[in-house]
């Protein structure tokens, strides 16, 4: 978070103002300093080399393993996959933009609260956000998918050139998304900016809907400019390939440099979304009838008044639903959605659930509430948050999927229950194991450091996707009771794990460790 000279700062003989080149150099150097500072705060350092090795290993696997899959290079399916690559390239750009805009300009290399004492420039902030962008499971999964697509569809000798081109495309898209995100943030921070951003988003959503309804979406996707890039990526190390790579490089460098301009513009303006929440009046409501209801109400307010959580859940609830409509997902395929949305929702705050109270946890812990009740209320609010987002997604997706059969509906409802308990259990377990002192005031805040978030998101994605696949299969069996029966062992296992986590919270020593860490 950038800081500037205060009104009481006096001018010195050597002016603190620097030229653009010196500023840029200093910003790049500062990114290094901040990255080292951030790396120095990692608690389990031994895990870092392992994490890096796993990421590199998975990337290499994505580049090579698909070559060995049945039908690679030769089948009709391989050809079809290649035909879809330009759309996938464009899709990556679109999702990168949505992710960067929703997070208010990308993740912070150093939090606003920590950065306030240091002269961190908006350029440093911009470069830091770019550096952290790949530490996101959605980014990584798409990157591996694109690399895997090339390895599956192309002859082996063409894959290295294509992989290089894909990597450059990923970097260029991330930088382009950052320009859009900073620009939107700069717009959002001016008078009536929030309304303007909503209007812009609405226009794009309506345009997409119009294309879909008029049946021209496919035609448009056949002519996306990424066709030009993909055509040059897939021919091996030739001159035309070099031409494509050169264009990608130019886009990348230009986008990185240009992105600093809206970043400076946004930094000069007040974050209106956050300010509106913090300065607004919330009318008093009647006292709830029970202690549990009071605890739930307090936690619920903490969630829905948080800018990053509100934005995040809106994107999570609406985004996959729109993709499902565009992709004409049928009901069995829809079983992939609740796990995806629940995982994303938990990553907004659930994986460090006690951070909702911040330092207020010190006061809350002195209140005479039974620890079990406090835990129950937090679990309930998290579950409610995840279910609300999943239901919104399913509702959107169902608009095109028609009326489900009883067994399709049963599979989806059972899956929703199972993944919710699964995700709530995992999130609260991690919240107790590794609490972090996080200020969730900024739209760019995350409940845990980026590298930890990658670990959490990977584990959630794997478990919920596997569960989703099981129920996707069950949705084809024409007997609704089968899904119910299959859900029972899942629910017993997840509930047992959740109750074990509750047991940890009941232990005063463990609880005090969490409280002290969160309130640090």
């Amino acid at each position: 978070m950038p800081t500037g000279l205060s009104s009481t700062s006096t001018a010195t003989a050597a002016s603190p103002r620097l030229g653009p080149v010196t500023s840029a150099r200093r910003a790049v150097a500062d990114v290094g300093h901040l990255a080292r500072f951030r790396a120095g705060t990692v608690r389990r350092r031994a895990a870092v080399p392992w994490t890096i090795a796993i990421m590199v290993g998975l990337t290499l696997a994505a580049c090579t393993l698909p070559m060995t899959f049945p039908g690679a290079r030769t089948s009709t399916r391989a050809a079809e996959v290649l035909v879809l690559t330009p759309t996938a390239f464009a899709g990556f750009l679109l999702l990168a933009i949505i992710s960067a805009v929703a997070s208010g300009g990308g993740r912070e290399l150093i939090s606003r609260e920590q950065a306030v004492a240091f002269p961190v420039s908006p350029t440093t902030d911009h470069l830091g956000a770019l550096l952290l962008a790949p530490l996101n499971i959605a980014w990584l999964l798409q990157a591996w998918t694109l690399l895997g697509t090339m390895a599956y569809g192309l002859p082996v000798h063409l894959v290295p050139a294509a992989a290089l081109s894909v990597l450059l495309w990923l970097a260029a898209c991330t930088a382009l998304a950052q320009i859009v995100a900073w620009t939107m943030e700069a717009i959002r921070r001016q008078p009536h900016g929030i309304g303007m951003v909503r209007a812009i988003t609405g226009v794009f959503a309506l345009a997409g809907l119009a294309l879909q309804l008029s049946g021209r979406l496919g035609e448009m996707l056949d002519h996306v400019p990424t066709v030009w890039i993909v055509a040059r990526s897939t021919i091996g190390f030739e001159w035309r390939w070099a031409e494509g790579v050169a264009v990608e490089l130019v886009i990348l460098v230009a986008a990185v440099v240009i992105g600093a301009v809206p970043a400076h513009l946004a930094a000069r303006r007040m974050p209106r979304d956050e300010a509106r929440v913090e300065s607004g009046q919330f009318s008093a409501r009647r006292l709830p009838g029970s202690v549990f209801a009071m605890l739930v109400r307090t936690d619920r307010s903490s969630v829905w008044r948080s800018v990053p959580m509100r934005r995040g859940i809106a994107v999570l609830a609406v985004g996959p639903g729109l993709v499902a409509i565009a992709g004409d997902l049928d009901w069995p395929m829809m079983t992939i959605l609740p796990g995806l949305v629940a995982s994303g929702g938990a990553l907004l705050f659930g994986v460090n659930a006690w951070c909702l109270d911040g330092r207020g946890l010190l006061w809350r812990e002195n209140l005479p509430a039974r620890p079990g009740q406090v835990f129950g209320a937090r679990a309930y609010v998290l579950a409610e948050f995840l279910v609300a987002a999943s239901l919104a997604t399913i509702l959107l997706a169902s608009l095109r999927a028609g009326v489900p059969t009883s067994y399709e509906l049963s599979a989806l409802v059972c899956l929703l229950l199972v993944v919710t308990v699964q995700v709530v259990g995992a999130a609260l377990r991690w919240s107790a194991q590794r609490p972090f002192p996080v200020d969730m005031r900024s739209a760019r805040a995350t409940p845990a450091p980026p590298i930890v978030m990658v670990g959490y998101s990977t584990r959630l994605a794997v478990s919920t996707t596997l569960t989703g696949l099981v129920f996707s299969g069950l949705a084809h069996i024409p007997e609704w009771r089968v899904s119910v029966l299959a859900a029972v062992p899942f629910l017993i296992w997840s509930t047992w794990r959740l109750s074990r986590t509750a047991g940890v919270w009941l232990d005063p020593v463990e609880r005090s460790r969490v409280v002290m860490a969160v309130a640090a």
Partner: protein
Amino acid sequence: MSEPVVDIRSLHVRFGEVEAVAGIDVQAYAGQATALLGRNGAGKSTTMRVLAGLIPPTAGTVVVDGLDMRKDTLAIKRISGYCPDVGGLIPRATPWEHLQLSARLRRLEDWEDRARDLLERFELGDVAHRITGGFSHGMGRRLSVVLASLHQPKLLLLDEPFDGVDPIGVDATMDVVADARARGACILISTHLRELAIQACTDVLVLRGGSRVASVESAEMAGEEGARAYRALLD
């Protein structure tokens, strides 16, 4: 003298290798206000957190109003009010919602008028329905004192209540302490501000390196002479 409301004997608190409190004995009585003075890291806030039921003692006994902290933590929380040294406020809840939470969990009846009166005395009436995330440090401190005193607890624990607070807030806090003493509550105040501690309290405990090094009447710590004596105890 009557039974102490707070009776701490040989309290030890360890965080891994660090011993934050190393065998403190504290007795504090009804109708008295006791100041905990000492340098940073002396163990003042940790002792307060133990009394507030946040940190279980590693060793030693902590008895509040005849209740054992290990067995009756919840009962002790019902009769105590705590203003933490840092923050102490839920960032996205309003002051009124904080008061409602406290009132509901403590089963308070007809608390609204007193709550409004406290908010007015601490000049927080205008911001009663704004979330505390946007509060200044001083506003947060003042609200923490309001929250600690709403239910007129038998044991009032104020950790750095004067830190960054303006003179009106300091006066209001002094009034809260005087009211609590008048109704027979036991008050513990942890602070770095010796003069204010002496003004608010009857007794002073000086802690150093997690241990108690002096226990005197506050008058003995007053003025230049008291300042020199205090300085000598810290070094």
